[in-house]
């Protein structure tokens, strides 16, 4: 028994006698997790959330969520004697009077940006690789909720310092609440505790920001991780990797060191960012004043797409029967987010309907092997990106010296034209990549050696790829093609599900349109043989004059 084990054995025994922990350790300490850089993205989200909790706790020691007016007497001279809310004054104090306070504020803000960004990119990874398929739909939905909660956490926090920027954000929220039909006006008074801005909103946002939202996030993250743990991680297809196994490294010691170390890497990078790159210098903006605003008002990046939509939605406002319906505010401000979340949660079911694939999947799809899904993903990214750019249309205008009106008009049209275009182009690229893969499997890799036959025909020598690569390139599942069931069965009775199967068949045809099917073993055999035969033809032609140095397994491609 090694010294390390000796030290650990006593507390382990004590724990085991109370929690039977050994049984759990036995099967989990060496639990295998697959290794890939893209699996780190979710970890970044988790770690930045932990940094948020820690830095946020520090900030609560000094922040006063109060809208009571005080006259600033702190050490930041330009604002001395200025009346402001206690929230803003205490934010200034954290920055100017507390050692490390400014650093902690910047850590909190940087990790918030990173939190939402890494969740977003993690979601892309899960989407493009099909990791949301059965059995992981629940975790996908939890992830979508987490993303929404991340936005809520970010926005409530953004509003707390009560500086000019955050107040302007709140005013926009008030405008959005007012656009809600029937109850909007009442809701606004209830939320703000009276006429805008009132004196309650900061303390109310505060409790949401430090308790409700992080509590929900913590609960959802826990569920997310427990499910991940129980279902085991997905892995890339490849030699030795099947739907039934997990290939990778053990939790202890490899991932304890790697993932544990990665937490410190992420937090270290955030701290260094906060040391060197200033973020949200609230003292420049000044205290909130509803009659003031600074030009180039920008929200944090993750709210940009919603703000962009507010900017480019045309003036759709109607008075119906004496009541005002402001769709120009309600659609981007109120409906966009639930629709977005609904689409996210619904996507696995939609894809399942289109592909008819309800099997368990633990092997990931390479994005090219599912061209339609990849196209949809890129389409969504382009859509989001255009909205996000619209949120900075004034900056785009300044940088490129284009009138801001042109940019808005362009976005209004582009939002409906460019995403479908992106879909078509992406799908084509994916299919082309698939064809190249199959080409490589059937004809081998290009060697760069050009040969000339006696007839003067040039061809490039191809060499076969190794068996591991060849297997990896053909390991994807075969698309399942669905055709509608006949409308009437043999005895002429109408099939009650005919319409549904017809719809499904149509969707399925669209989904797998032009997707490359990998060859069957026989087809591959024929194809390779055919290629070899061609090479042999060349060899025969060449035999006499050149002596024919072609190795027989090389294949030809002109």
């Amino acid at each position, binding site marked *: 028994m090694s010294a390390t084990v000796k030290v650990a054995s006593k507390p382990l025994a004590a724990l085991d006698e109370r929690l039977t922990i050994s049984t759990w350790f036995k099967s989990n300490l060496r639990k295998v997790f697959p*290794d890939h850089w893209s699996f780190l993205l979710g970890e970044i989200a988790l770690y930045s959330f932990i940094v948020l909790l820690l830095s946020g706790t520090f900030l609560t020691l000094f922040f006063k969520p109060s809208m009571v*007016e005080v006259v600033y007497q702190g050490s930041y*001279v330009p604002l001395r004697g200025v009346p402001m809310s206690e929230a803003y004054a205490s934010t200034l104090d954290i920055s*100017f009077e*507390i*050692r*490390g306070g*400014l650093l902690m504020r910047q850590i909190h803000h940087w990790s918030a940006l990173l939190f939402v960004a890494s969740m977003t990119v993690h979601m892309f990874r899960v989407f493009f690789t099909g990791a949301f398929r059965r059995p992981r739909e629940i975790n996908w939905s939890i992830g979508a909720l987490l993303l929404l909660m991340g936005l809520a956490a970010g926005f409530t926090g953004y509003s707390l310092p009560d500086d000019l920027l955050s107040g*302007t954000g709140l005013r*926009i929220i*008030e*405008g959005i609440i*007012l656009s809600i039909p*029937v109850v909007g*006006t009442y809701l606004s*008074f*209830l939320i703000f505790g009276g*006429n*805008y801005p009132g*004196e309650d909103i900061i303390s109310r946002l505060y409790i949401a920001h430090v308790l409700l939202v992080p509590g929900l996030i913590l609960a959802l993250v826990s569920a997310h991780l427990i499910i991940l743990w129980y279902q085991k991680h997905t892995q890339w297809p490849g*030699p030795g990797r099947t*739907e039934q*196994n*997990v*290939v*990778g*490294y*053990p939790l202890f010691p490899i991932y304890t*060191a790697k993932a544990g*170390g990665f937490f*410190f890497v*992420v*937090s*270290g*990078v955030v701290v260094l960012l906060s*040391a060197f790159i200033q973020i949200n210098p609230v003292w420049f903006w000044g205290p909130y004043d*509803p009659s003031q*605003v600074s*030009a180039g*008002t920008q929200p944090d990046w993750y709210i940009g797409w919603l703000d962009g939509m*507010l900017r*480019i939605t045309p*003036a759709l406002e109607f008075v119906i029967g*004496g*009541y005002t319906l*402001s769709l*120009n*505010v309600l659609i981007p401000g109120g409906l966009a987010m639930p629709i977005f979340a609904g689409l996210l949660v619904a996507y696995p079911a939609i894809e399942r309907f289109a592909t008819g694939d309800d099997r368990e999947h633990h092997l990931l799809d390479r994005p090219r092997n599912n061209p339609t899904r990849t196209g949809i993903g890129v389409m969504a990214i382009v859509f989001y990106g255009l909205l996000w750019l619209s949120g900075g249309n*004034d900056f785009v205008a300044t940088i490129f010296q284009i009138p*801001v*009106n042109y940019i*808005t008009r362009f976005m209004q049209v582009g939002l409906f034209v460019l995403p479908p275009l992106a879909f078509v182009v992406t799908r084509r690229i994916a299919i082309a990549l698939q*064809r190249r893969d199959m080409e490589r499997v059937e004809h081998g890799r290009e060697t760069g050696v050009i040969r000339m036959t006696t007839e003067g025909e040039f061809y490039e020598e191809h060499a076969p790829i190794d068996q591991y690569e060849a*297997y990896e390139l053909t390991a994807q599942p*075969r698309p399942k093609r669905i055709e509608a069931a006949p409308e009437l069965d043999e005895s002429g009775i109408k099939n009650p599900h005919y319409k549904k199967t017809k719809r499904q068949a149509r969707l399925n045809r669209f989904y797998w349109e032009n997707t490359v099917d*990998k*060859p*069957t*073993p026989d087809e*591959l055999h024929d194809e390779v043989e055919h290629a070899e035969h061609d090479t042999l033809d060349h060899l025969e032609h060449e035999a006499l004059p050149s002596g024919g140095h072609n190795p027989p397994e090389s294949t030809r491609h002109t």
Partner: protein
Amino acid sequence: MTTHSSEIEPAAQGGDPLPDPGLPPHTPRLTDTDTKAAKRAERQIGVMFGIAALGSIGFVAAYLALPLDGDLGRLQLSNILLGLGLGASLLLLGLGAVQWAKKLMPDVEMVQQRHPLESPPEDRQAAVAAFEAGAEESGIGRRPLIRNSLLGAAALLPLPVLFFLGDMGPINPNPALVRSTTIWTRGTRVVNDVTFTPIRPEDLQVGQLVNAMPESYEEIPEEDAAERLTTRAYSSVLVIRLEPGEFEVPPGREGWDVDGILCYSKICTHVGCPISLYEQQTHNMLCPCHQSTFALSQAGKVVFGPAKRPLPQLPLEVDAEGYLAAQGDFTEPVGPSYWERAKYIRTEPA
């Protein structure tokens, strides 16, 4: 490439075209074969952990050496040194651990089998049976009175929860009414919003724009910060002087200007940002939040952007002492639209 014949079931899976060759053979790392390389890696990791320790000490040193005294340069230095110390400490601790795992811990991949992600059929049956037994014992199926009254009680429970929130804000009088008025009344003087001095018509040149407030704003006590903020959120106005005849006067608004001096609400009719970018050439006001553009020479009409309604106009007059004053409140609610808004449009300045 051939496509599959279409059938309801997939064409017999066909199998993978190539057999699974199994995991590729493991290639040893330099640190596996060369003890010197392994020693070197060990030293690297030790150095990383060493720098991490120094980072923590550096943080404490910077904390003690640089008390804040209001000097911005010192604050910046403190921020950089504290961040550098803590950041280096965290980053190198992490990098050292990762390096340890990558260079010195075994990198032979292990294989574990997945367990099936569905219960065996007999377990499912047993679960259903257990549920049935419980449901049967509760008698919920046999006793509809209990079931229905329970559902009714549960359905009404959200009501107290909802009403609990009723006092979060004053909703009596009706918020729609409260927010439809501002503190502008007949005779309220227009004052500059920085100097709070009243404005004479002759103070304004043609094309000049002034941000203004009602004079009564100053009468709100300093302690009532909320009321002051609300007033700024509703009663802020823009005063502009245009050449008489160079701006449109819609029917019903004759006599609302004083020699070409017009007054508009400063609050955007889109979502309520204070509009503040003035284009002197066109006399247009641009909202910096979402770029709604209002033509002050065309009765505040929207010429671009997501806002639908023109800026509300405040009718002006000159009081007995020669200062600009309001003829009354706005004839419509200022700021963003809301559901009941149309009900509060008045014909006369109140």
